[in-house]
C-alpha cells in the first residue's frame, strides 16, 4: 500500500467520537486509525451515517469532543485549532447551503478568509478562484439563494481553495455537480495535488470518483473501518470485506432484484 511510504501529513490513531447520553448515545466513530502521506489522496467511503463526516470534523477541529490521537504535518493536535491551522488545512462541507452565510454575497464569502489571514491582492485571488471552479464574474455579487445547488457547492470549494492550504478535507465535494463540472473540479484538484503537493482526504459515495482520485481508501460501516485498501485493489475488484463487495455490486446501477439480496452488516467488527 502506498500508505507505507512518504512523510505522513495526517495521522489518526484510535479516534473515537461519542455523541449524546442514555438512549440517545451514539458511538459515531470507533477506534478509527489511518495515515495519509504528503501529496496523496485518502478516500473515505461507507454507509450513510457510518461516521465519515464526523471523522473529517474531528480532523478539521470543528468538533472538539473526540479522543485518540490526531497529528497534522507532524504535530499532535489539540481539540481546538488556531488561525494558522486553517491556513494549513481547509474543509469543504457536505452541505454547501448550511456552510454559506445566507446574507453574504459570494464576494464577501470569499473576501472574509483573505481578510482574516491578511493575504495580498484579494481582487485577483477572487477572480482567479471563481474562474477555477467555473463560475464567471456574473456570480460574484449574488447571494447563496440566487444560486443553484451545484453553483453553491462550487462557491464552497472556491472558499477552501482561496487560502491555498496544503491539506483539503473534502466531504462529498462534487455530489451536487453535474458530471461535466465534476470533471473540471476533479481535474483542478488533481492539478493542484501535482503542482503543489497537496494532501487530500476525500469522502465520496461514488466509487469511480474514489478510484480516479485516491491512492488509498478506508471503508466504514457503523462507526468502524471494516477495510483499508489501496485503490489498485479496488480497481482490480478484489476488496476483502463483504460490505465493500456489496458496495461494488451496488455501484453498477439499479437492479430491483439485486436490492433484495443486499445484506445488513450492522454492528460487527
Amino acid at each position, binding site marked *: 500500500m502506498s500508505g507505507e511510504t512518504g512523510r505522513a501529513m495526517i495521522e489518526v490513531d484510535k479516534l473515537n467520537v461519542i455523541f449524546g447520553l442514555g438512549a440517545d448515545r451514539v458511538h459515531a466513530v470507533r477506534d478509527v486509525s489511518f495515515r495519509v502521506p504528503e501529496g496523496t489522496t485518502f478516500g473515505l467511503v461507507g454507509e450513510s451515517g457510518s461516521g465519515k463526516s464526523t471523522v473529517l470534523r474531528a480532523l478539521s477541529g470543528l468538533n472538539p469532543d473526540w479522543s485518540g490521537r490526531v497529528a497534522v504535518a507532524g504535530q499532535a493536535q489539540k481539540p481546538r485549532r488556531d488561525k494558522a491551522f486553517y491556513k494549513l488545512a481547509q474543509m469543504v462541507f457536505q452541505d454547501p447551503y448550511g456552510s454559506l452565510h445566507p446574507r453574504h454575497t459570494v464576494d464577501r464569502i470569499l473576501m472574509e478568509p483573505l481578510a482574516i489571514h491578511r493575504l495580498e491582492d484579494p481582487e485577483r485571488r477572487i477572480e482567479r478562484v471563481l474562474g477555477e471552479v467555473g463560475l464567471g464574474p456574473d456570480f460574484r455579487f449574488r447571494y447563496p439563494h440566487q444560486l443553484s445547488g451545484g453553483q453553491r457547492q462550487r462557491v464552497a470549494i472556491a472558499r477552501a481553495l482561496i487560502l491555498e492550504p496544503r491539506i483539503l478535507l473534502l466531504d462529498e465535494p462534487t455530489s451536487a455537480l453535474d458530471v461535466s463540472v465534476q470533471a473540471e473540479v476533479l481535474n483542478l484538484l488533481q492539478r493542484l495535488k501535482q503542482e503543489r503537493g497537496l494532501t487530500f482526504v476525500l469522502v465520496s459515495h461514488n466509487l469511480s470518483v474514489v478510484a480516479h482520485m485516491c491512492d488509498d481508501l478506508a471503508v466504514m460501516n457503523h462507526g468502524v473501518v471494516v477495510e483499508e485498501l489501496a485503490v489498485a485493489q479496488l480497481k482490480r475488484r478484489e476488496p476483502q470485506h463483504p460490505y465493500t463487495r456489496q458496495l461494488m455490486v451496488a455501484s453498477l446501477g439499479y437492479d*430491483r432484484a439485486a436490492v433484495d439480496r443486499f445484506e445488513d452488516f*450492522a454492528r460487527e467488527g
Partner: protein
Amino acid sequence: MSDKPLLAIEDLHVSFPTRKGVVEAVRGISFSLGREKLGIVGESGSGKSMTGRSILRLVSRPGIVTAKRMEFDGIDLQRASAAQMRRIRGQRISMVMQDPKFSLNPVMRVGEQIAEAYRTHEKVAPAEAKRRSLEMLKAVRIRDPERVYRAYPHEVSGGMGQRIMIAMMLIPDPDLLIADEPTSALDVTVQLQVLAILDDLVTQRGMGLIFISHDLNLVASFCDRVVIMYAGRVMEICDAKNLDAAQHPYTRGLLNCLPRIDSDGRDLAVLRRDPAWMEHGL
C-alpha cells in the same frame, strides 16, 4: 402508462429579474409524465430545480413563471387557487428538495416534523402520527428510528437528512413525487434500497416520479425516460435504457466526462460547450 398523462407541461419559462439583467432559468420546456419514472439530468444551473418548483408553484420571488399549459390530473395548476394548491402540495404532489437539511426546521425534532406534516393533512391522533412516522423512518432504512425521531436536524448525517425528507414526503401517499437529487448523499447500497421503495410505489400504486439527478448511470438503470436539459432548454428526451446511445452532442459530452472505476488517473474529458445548444431546444 395510460394514454392521458398525469402531468403535462408546455412551454414553461422561469426568469429572475436581477440588477444585472434578467436571468432566464427555464426557457420554454415541454414534457409530459405518465405513471412512470422520468429522469431529468443536465448541467448545473440548467433549470432542473426551477422546473420542479414551478410545478408546485414554489418558485420564490422575484421569479416569474409562465407556461402555455401546466396540467396535473385535469387540474390547471396556473389557475388553481392558493387553497387548492395547498391541498395539492400536501396530498397529491410532494417534492423532496435538493437541500434537505435546509428544508427542515433546525429547532424542532426530526420526528415531530414528520408527524406534524402528516397531521396537517390527515386527521389522526398524535400517537398514530408518531407510529406512522417511525414506520416511514424504518422503511427508508434508518437504523435507529427511535433515536433519529428525537434528533435535531444538525444531529443527523447528510444521508439521514435526505432519507428523513423522503419519509416525510411519502407519508401522504402522493400521486406525483418530484425528487430533486434525493439520494446524492447516500451510499450506493442504501441509495438503491431507497430507490426500490420509490420504484415499487410507481409499479404497484401508479405513482408518477420525476427524478432529478446528476448520476447518469443511475438514471439510465432506474428511470423509464430521461429529459436532458442545458441552459434552460430540453436537448433531448430518450428512453433511459438507451441513454448510452444518445445522439445529442451535449449528452454524448456528458457521458464522456464520467470517471470510471478502472480509471488510469489521467485528466477526465471535459465538455466543450457549443453556443448553438443555447439556441435550439426541443
